[in-house]
């Protein structure tokens, strides 16, 4: 009896082992390349946050000194604050607009491919061109289109947009939503194709209206896609860099505290001051934030799957 159980147990173990091996064989081709060339350097970079290193001289272990230094640097604190504000506004706005666009462009309408391409355009267009057009609309001069609109339609004072400390983040957020919504729209479009027509047909038979169909079929069915979009959006928001440099840096590349973001700070520490340890410490802070958000989301996704 005991032997039989043991044999069964062994059998199960062997089967699980085989299953593991099959799974690893699926992962291996990507993971090997990823582990050696990306994960390795990343782990090293994270270790570097406890070191002092300039890329050439010997690394020196300095404990938490990098962290105490960056947390007493107002440029870092400002960049952390700006990045969080930026992400809090950009993530939900972009998500909702991208989903709305995707649903709109998933209808059978004339010129669908044209409109899809056009929506994707700001994402692929040269950043210089997109920023130049943006700066024409949102110019700090009174004659700019947006300022004319503010003065004549809303009867409020014109704004200095990217040129003023209190409106620069607003300008960057609006710009970013506009530039990136097409990208996330494409992901949602692909997600929408995965929803079976049967579900909608069944709902229609039950007499559900479009709104109910959207809430009870589209939203839950898109959950994996939304998980992906939320995580990627959050990560990309926390990693925002070139948009800020383009809009707030302008012709002299000076980004001051009002628009400083984390990756800009990291870039400055790494390549202007060659303090790779401090850059890594800042990155570790960013990493911790994103990891927390991801784990929370991940839990949420699993709960949904278990429901």
């Amino acid at each position, binding site marked *: 009896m005991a032997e039989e159980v043991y044999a069964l147990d062994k059998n199960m173990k062997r089967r699980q082992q085989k299953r593991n091996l099959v799974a690893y064989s699926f992962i291996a081709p990507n993971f090997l390349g990823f582990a050696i060339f990306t994960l390795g350097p990343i782990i090293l970079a994270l270790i570097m946050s406890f070191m002092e290193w300039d*890329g*050439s*001289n010997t690394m020196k272990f300095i404990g938490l000194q990098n962290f105490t230094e960056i947390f007493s640097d107002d440029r870092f604190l400002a960049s952390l604050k700006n990045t969080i504000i930026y992400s809090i506004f950009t993530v939900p706005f972009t998500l909702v607009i991208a989903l709305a666009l995707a649903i709109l462009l998933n209808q059978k309408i004339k010129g669908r491919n044209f409109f899809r391409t056009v929506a994707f355009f700001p994402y692929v267009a040269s950043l210089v061109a997109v920023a130049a057009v943006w*700066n024409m609309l949102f110019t700090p001069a009174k004659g700019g289109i947006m300022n004319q609109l503010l003065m004549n339609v809303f009867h409020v004072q014109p704004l200095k947009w990217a040129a003023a400390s209190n409106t620069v983040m607003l300008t960057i957020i609006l710009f970013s939503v506009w530039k990136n919504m097409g990208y996330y729209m494409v992901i949602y479009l692909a997600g929408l194709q995965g929803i079976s027509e049967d579900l909608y047909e069944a709902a229609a038979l039950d007499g559900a209206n479009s709104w109910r169909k959207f809430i009870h079929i589209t939203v839950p069915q898109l959950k994996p896609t939304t998980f992906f979009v939320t995580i990627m959006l959050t990560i990309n928001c926390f990693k925002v860099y070139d948009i800020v440099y383009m809009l707030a840096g*302008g012709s002299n590349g000076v980004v001051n505290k009002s628009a400083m973001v984390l990756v800009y700070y990291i870039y400055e520490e790494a*390549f202007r*001051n060659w303090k790779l340890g401090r850059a890594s410490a800042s990155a570790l802070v960013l990493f911790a934030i994103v990891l927390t958000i991801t784990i929370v989301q991940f839990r949420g996704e699993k709960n949904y799957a278990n429901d």
Partner: protein
Amino acid sequence: MRRKLISSLLACSMIIASITGCGKTTTAEGSSSQEPAGSAAETGGEAGQAASGEPVNLKWALWDISSTVYYQPLIDAYTAEHPNVSIEMVDLGSTDYSTVLGTQLSGSGSDFDVVTIKDVPGYVTLVNKGALEPLDDLISKDGVDLSLYNGVTDQVKIDGKLYELPFRSDIWVLYYNKDIFDKAGVEYPTNDMTWDQYDALCRKVTDTTPGSEIYGSHYHTWRSTIQLDGILDGKNTIVDGNYDFTKPYYDMVLGQQKDGVCMDYALLKTQGLHYSAAFANGNVATMNMGSWFIATLIQKIKDGEFTDCTNWGMVKYPHAEGVEPGSTLSTITALAIPTTAPNKDVAWDFVKFVSGEKGAEVMAQTGNIPAMTNDKIVDIIAQMDGFPQDENSKEALVTSHTYLEMPANDKSSEIETVLNEQHDLIMNGEVSVDEAIKAMNEGVQAIIGK
């Protein structure tokens, strides 16, 4: 799983090994102070090798091959004397040059023999990284006369050691559009103007009629165009930690901005208007800018792109009351030898040549101001086709004192960050000049004090 884990650990350890390995070979002071002695000892042998005709290939890091006129002539001139040496140019791009060069020189695997140094903060970081060879022993051994560089080399010494030799030097001058002055019936600027006279002149030639504005002055968005005017009396430097001296200059420019004498900073910054385009527009009467703009102006006028500023001239920078005219800012471009260079001695020979007299002549013939200047060099430049024919413009190239835009200081890049930020705030009108100066004083003193 275990196997993956092992392989990823292996990967990590490989990386760590490769990096700590590099760490050892370049370990800061210890070896870098020994190495020059070693290479000096070898010099006899390898210099002999250069002369004996054994083929050597030098790798030279630089930027903008396609738009820089002097690289190939310099190489041709050198290889004509040393037929066994070939020189390979490696273009790292101008926009991210310092980042790319810094990465390339990290660790010990770089095979560059000569690197061009673009700016002082980039130079200082490379020196701090222990990536550059000190040149003092070589300089004294070969009897290079540093006095020919007009004192500039003293401003880039770090802890008494020199790690680069300049070959190009750009000074700041005041460009002006003669047509605008003729039309307004105002006399041209001169080589001897105080800042007050300059301010009055700019205001005189300004026209604020909407639609046909003439701007008396133009300041590009850089900090240098305003803040550094204050160091030209020689009493202050930009790395001292006290910036009270910048106040009159900010006041002057803010006043001009308010009265429409110059364009609005916020607009210039967001619109991304390049200073060359601003001057080419034909509505800017004067503009302070570096001498690198001479070559651009001549070329673009020749190409037919610039049509509204063809009648231009230049004069010396305005000066503070009681200071000799001809004091101005300068920027140098220099050559250095990485500690990892495979052919250090041939590299030094090349650096010496380019920064020396023969290199200077080649530079001047291509319309660029070499770091080593004299009357002959000024003559060569002024005779260039397209250079303004008036005597004042030629005279403008002669300087009395030059001050580097940023002297070498091991906190250069951090100081610059503070100064740039406050400059931006002042010019955007977000803080008063006094508040900004206070912030600059406190910020920089905190950095220096560290």
